[in-house]
């Protein structure tokens, strides 16, 4: 967790020369974030009070009060995001990072957002889920001219509905979203709301997927399905911050999906209800408990639960490839293939060859083998009991009885009470002679007609 100075300080950078200093004088100075760590929640310094959210591996955009209007400044610009330790991706984002800062306001706030474009091409911002004047909706060509490079546009509207929203470009959006341009928008209710519970912890993140060639650093923007970097807020496990809660806290988790596929978000150890979408709070009668909720493309889901079970609980997408780092999706399965006598022969032509995958891919997590530069490994992340063998949309939900109300620090690994961890059976071993149902490669009761019967042999050769 990083302490951050707001309008002034080390993390703040002066706008680039391409933006006129005279014009800038009238603008709120943008806050540029240099770190990909999770920032502390921003307690509102002015305006109506609210309980702030924690943006996983992100931060909230500070504002300036100007005659009762909350003024924010977003700078659309190329950034280098540390997606995992040592793995850097060239992205486009806002104010130094992708995703951009979370905009947090209160229902009824008048909001003015300055958007400066430092991208090499035009852009806009669409305020996903907001009720606003049509000309503020940010669709280039339809609602407004696109913001040319070097120019600053102003959006102004009232945050009318409480809820969980997001912002993203609506100009060359295929490229700009593939490059990481997105951010969260949270509108808190201005007073107690019958459908919106008071929570002690409020977490928010966006789902984003990137296609980064192993050894490269810039996402392939033309990719449509075969992504290899699956992220919460453009971070991949093990680099995603844990969600921390004091035992008994009511916790809200806000998830938005800006990838090109759905993500069944699954929480261990607890059940939750979906209490809201980007359409607003869900009526009480429409809620049901579950442990996995599918967040479809372009949707937001607001989950709520009571963190009553202490421990380190997984929180992840249930598409298992989405909890994996970069891998070749066309690599054949090697499981159960006898390599006897072949490894040495292959090493004669490829001396660094190592046998992998004949028992499954779990070894990948523990094998330390050189990968192409700047490549996010397929699975990694050490837990208290060994390798977690994940890498992507995966993090932990850490519930502790002893935790300060505003303490969001990682409390370390859970200390299990004695006798509450699965253990090795010490009794009689399984009879290894027991017959297997099938031999490998043989389907039980399969028809015995095969054609072609066999392959021709390899060309004759003397040794």
């Amino acid at each position, binding site marked *: 967790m990083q302490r951050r100075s707001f309008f002034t300080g080390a993390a703040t950078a002066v706008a680039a020369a391409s933006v006129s200093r005279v014009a800038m004088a009238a603008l709120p100075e943008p806050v540029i974030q240099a770190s990909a760590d999770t920032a502390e929640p921003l307690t509102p310094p002015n305006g109506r009070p609210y309980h702030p959210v924690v943006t996983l591996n992100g931060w909230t955009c500070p504002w300036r009060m100007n005659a009762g209007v909350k003024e924010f400044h977003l700078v659309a610009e190329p950034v280098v995001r540390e997606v995992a330790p040592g793995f850097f991706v060239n992205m486009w984002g806002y104010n130094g990072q992708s995703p951009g800062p979370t905009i947090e306001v209160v229902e009824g706030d008048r909001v003015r957002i300055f958007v400066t474009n430092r991208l090499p091409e035009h852009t806009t911002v669409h305020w996903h889920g907001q009720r606003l004047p049509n000309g503020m909706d940010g669709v280039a060509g339809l609602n407004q001219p696109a913001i040319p490079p070097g120019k600053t546009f102003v959006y102004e509207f009232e945050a009318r509905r409480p809820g969980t929203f997001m912002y993203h470009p609506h100009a060359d959006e295929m490229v700009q979203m593939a490059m990481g341009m997105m951010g969260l928008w949270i509108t808190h209710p201005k007073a107690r709301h019958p459908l919106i519970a008071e929570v002690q912890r409020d977490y928010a993140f966006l789902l984003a997927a990137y296609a980064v060639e*192993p050894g490269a650093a810039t996402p392939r923007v033309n990719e449509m399905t075969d992504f290899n970097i699956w992220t919460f807020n453009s971070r991949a496990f093990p680099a995603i911050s844990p969600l921390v809660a004091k035992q008994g806290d009511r916790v809200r988790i806000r998830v938005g999906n800006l990838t090109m596929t759905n993500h069944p978000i699954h929480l261990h150890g607890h059940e939750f209800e979906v209490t809201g979408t980007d359409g607003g709070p869900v009526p009480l009668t429409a809620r049901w408990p579950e442990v996995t909720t599918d967040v479809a493309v372009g949707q937001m889901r607001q989950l709520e639960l009571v963190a009553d079970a202490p421990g380190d609980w997984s929180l992840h997408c249930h598409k298992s490839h989405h909890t994996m780092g970069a891998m*070749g999706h066309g*690599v054949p*399965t090697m499981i159960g293939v006898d390599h006897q006598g072949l490894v040495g022969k292959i090493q004669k032509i490829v001396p660094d*060859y190592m046998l*992998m995958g004949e028992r499954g891919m779990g070894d990948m997590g523990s094998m330390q*083998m050189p990968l192409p530069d700047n490549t996010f490994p397929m699975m990694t992340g050490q837990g208290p009991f060994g390798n977690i063998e994940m890498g992507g949309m995966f993090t932990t939900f850490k519930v502790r009885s002893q935790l300060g109300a505003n303490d969001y620090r990682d409390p370390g690994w859970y200390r299990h009470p004695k006798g509450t961890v699965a253990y090795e059976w010490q009794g009689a071993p399984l009879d290894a002679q027991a017959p297997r149902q099938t031999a490998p490669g043989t389907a039980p009761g399969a028809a015995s007609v095969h054609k072609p019967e066999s392959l021709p042999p390899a060309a004759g050769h003397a040794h």
Partner: protein
Amino acid sequence: MSPRLLRLTPVVAALVLAGCASVAPDGQRSAVTAHTAGSLPAGSQLADPAPQARAAARAQVAAWLQQPVDADTAVRIALLNSPALEAQVAALGVQDAQRVQALTLPNPTLTLGRFVNAQEREIERQLSFGLVSLITLPWRARWQGWQLEQATLTTAQQVLLHAADTRRAWLRAVAAQQQLQTAQTLHEAAAAGGELARRMARVGNFSKLEQAQELRVQQEAAANLARSRLNAALEREQLARLMGLWGAQADFVLPATLPPLPAAAALRAGDDAEATALRERLDLRALRRELDTTAERNGFARVGAVFGDVGASYSRNTSTERASGHDDITRGWELELPLPLFDWGGAASAGARSALQRNAAQLRETALRARSEARSHWLRYRTAYDLAQQQQTEAVPLARFLQDEAVYRYNGMFISVWQLLAQARSTAQAVATATEAQRDFWLADVDLQLALTGTSPGTPPSPVTPSAAPAATTEAGH
């Protein structure tokens, strides 16, 4: 000097000259060696047919064959041991003997006659010999000398060509042996890949189609191995033939690799190539000698044609009167002169003039070719060097880099072991291509040496066809 003695002088001189013309005991081998010394490896010698020398040569060759045969030793063995070359040198000895024979004066003819009639018995003794061969002896001696020198130069060229052929064969044999090594490794790797694919199919991880695709790779590698094996054997056989080796000796050992490329600074400069070729090439020197010979013969042709063979004879006839027993002795000489009534030597002299022109034109043509060959072989040599250098310092490291990256991608499970093997095959192919380029440089070096100081390399540099075939690439991982 008495007038009598003075009259005898030409005869004596001719006799002396004729006596000097003797057959060279080494069959002109040392003369040939003198022409080739600078272009052959140190310690090269030509075969000596004398039994003792033969035994020594056999021992020497056997000693050389104890070690891996390098290019210079291959040339030494070929010069000492090749029957083909020995035949050529022996032919020079034959020519030398013929020259000496030609320069030997014709034996005088002694004619004896005994004639009897009723009164007399006549005994006739006549000693005669051809004058022209005597008079033209110095002339012919010089001419034959030139001809021999020319033949020596021609034989020297044969020696250099044989040495060059041997050196080329050595380069090809070593390179083919290296390629065979590569083909063996590739085949082993493909066989491992094929076997792995078979095991994949056996446990249900591969379809028969996928297995067949790997099997095809294995089959191609096996076919390529067979071709490489044949090629290595044929190239080696060619070298053995040129070195005159057979039987157990044909099992000689070659070095594992070609000599490394020289440093760029050690390369032969191209600016004096033409001058060197014109100055040093043996074929040009031989033609120049032939031109001299023809020019000289031009004069002789006229004399010979006009006078044919002038015969001179001395007679001493004795007639004995049978009745009285009185002897009457007649002495006298006779000169036999063909009359140039019909052939005034015009045709012969015209023929000689044409021969002269032909020789002059041949010399000009050869000089032209020598210049051109010097330029083109130098260019080929220089380009072959640059290509080999590029293969070695750029293409092979790049292929190795690609392979390292493929290993990293394999480590990250981005590509399969078959894709890794395919990349490794393409790396091995790059190494093989570099070996070929290295061989081609040394072949060009042999040709250039020959073109500059020996003779025409015989193989004009073939036009280069830029290769359009891209290197095999591997399917990229996802």
